[in-house]
């Protein structure tokens, strides 16, 4: 039972980090139909930026988090402005291919700046542990769950209540109509990229605290795809629940069945979902009347 509890907490905490990265992915997909292959690399960038801010420059953690998020947003805005905006109006596939290229570039840049060796710094997440019954839970992992949920809830509120959030929903619903209502598509795409980067950076910061700073984070970033396919490409709620499910499945298979299989499970889920329910748990089901 104590193992179960431990696995659940660790599964949920990784799951919420996946959810943060996935939510950013969903924001971009909702606004522009672009499948953003750089989402995992933004997560990677987040872990290195927090290492840079706290471990290298020695900022206090609060300032470090702020600097990390701002730098990540700046990188995303630069990508949007310089690379993707000129492609607005081109086929979506061009934008998607460009994000694949950008993904390699980002990964290469991180490698070029910080090198391939894992780095470490004093995490700002609390070191101690909490004892719940027979289980000993790391408080860092425990803490990451409410942080992630708060960020995700804020994203949900953004879509429901802000001018840009509503504009984003409008664009997703009908681009022509949105244009004729005076909604600026470049602006909304910019906001989408900024939000995607901010949420990935917060995920990256927590990842740095929970698993450390290394190029391997990029492979964790790839886990975004099973999460969004399971949850539905265009649903924030789907990202949260998909992230939780994938995180838990990984933890349980790793804990009960054996290490190694846990790396395969998310992609097994991905294939299964695509066969059975291609629009995911909460995705918009597209029915075409002929």
């Amino acid at each position, binding site marked *: 039972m104590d193992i179960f509890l431990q696995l659940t907490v660790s599964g949920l905490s990784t799951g919420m980090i996946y959810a943060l990265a996935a939510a950013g992915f969903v924001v971009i997909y909702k606004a522009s139909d672009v499948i953003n292959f750089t989402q995992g690399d933004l997560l990677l960038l987040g872990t290195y930026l927090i290492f840079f801010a706290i471990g290298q420059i020695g900022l206090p953690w609060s300032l470090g988090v702020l600097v990390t998020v701002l730098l990540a947003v700046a990188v995303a805005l630069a990508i949007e402005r310089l690379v993707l905006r000129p492609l607005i109006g081109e086929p979506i596939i061009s934008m998607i291919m460009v994000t694949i290229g950008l993904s390699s570039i980002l990964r290469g840049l991180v490698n070029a700046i910080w090198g391939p060796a894992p780095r470490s710094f004093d995490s700002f997440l609390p070191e101690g542990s909490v004892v719940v019954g027979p289980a000993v839970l790391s408080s860092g992992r425990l803490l990451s769950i409410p942080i992630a949920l708060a960020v995700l809830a804020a994203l949900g509120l953004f879509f429901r209540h*802000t*001018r*840009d*959030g509503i504009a984003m*929903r*409008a664009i997703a619903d009908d681009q*022509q109509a949105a244009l*004729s209502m005076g909604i600026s*598509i470049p602006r909304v795409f910019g906001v989408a990229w900024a939000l995607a980067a901010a949420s990935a950076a917060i995920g990256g910061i927590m990842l740095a605290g929970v698993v450390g700073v290394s190029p391997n984070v990029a492979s964790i970033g790839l886990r975004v795809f099973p999460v969004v396919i399971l949850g539905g490409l265009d649903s924030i709620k789907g990202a949260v629940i998909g992230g939780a499910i994938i995180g838990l499945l990984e933890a349980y298979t790793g804990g009960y069945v054996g290490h190694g299989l846990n790396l395969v499970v998310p992609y097994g889920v991905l294939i299964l979902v695509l066969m059975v329910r291609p629009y995911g748990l909460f995705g918009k089901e597209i029915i075409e009347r002929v």
Partner: protein
Amino acid sequence: MPILELDDLSLRFGGVTALSGLTMEVRKGELLALIGPNGAGKTSVLNCISGLYRAQDGTIALTAADGTRHPLHRLPPHRIAALGVARTFQNIELFKHMTVLENLMLGRHVHMKGGVLSGGLYLGRQRRAEIEHRRHVEEVIDFMNLEPLRSREVGNLAYGNQRLVEMARALALDPAILLLDEPTAGMNAEEKESMARFILDVHEERGITVVVIDHDIDVIMDISDRVVVLDFGRKIAEGPPEEVRGDAAVIDAYLGRARGDVA
């Protein structure tokens, strides 16, 4: 006094010429009908005005209420909407997953201020602005008799009602000029009559300049002050409805008799 001036406008798609050297004006406060056979370029004209298409040649100038002239052919669609140019579409373009009320509130988008922060915090000023927009939208709902439908999801509404909602959303923008692309398409006689009534009310009670495309000649003849006739991307006639109706070139364009000679 013209509110819109299109000067020598040409629009091509590859080898296809949609508009060639079109010069026309829309006068302030008039109800102008744009007619012509299928493929004449009517919708292209509206798309050029609202910025969805960019003409290769020619200019479009909008004279705002304060007298400033804006070169619409150089502005992006969202700036054009902000200048008070609202429109509806031939194949209804609504936010289908939102309610009637939400669709209309989006019509207020250009009048809303406030970014992520102030909007997210729902500050007092923001709240008052929201109430003000809401009041405006309620007035449009009232005007278009949409009360019973206000909280229904638009995708589930009957076709004729969707057309009304689309027009209401354009009105919510508080436009100086309203572009209607086949507002009565696919409607039965009764629905057409009530739509024509709404168009007249918009024009007369609200003093909005209206440009309407329609294939129903009876409706056009009934409601419009002036008619411009297009064929093959050119203007072939313009004038009061009764005059245009008897115009030889117009009759030819519609019946197709002299098409070989014209080309």
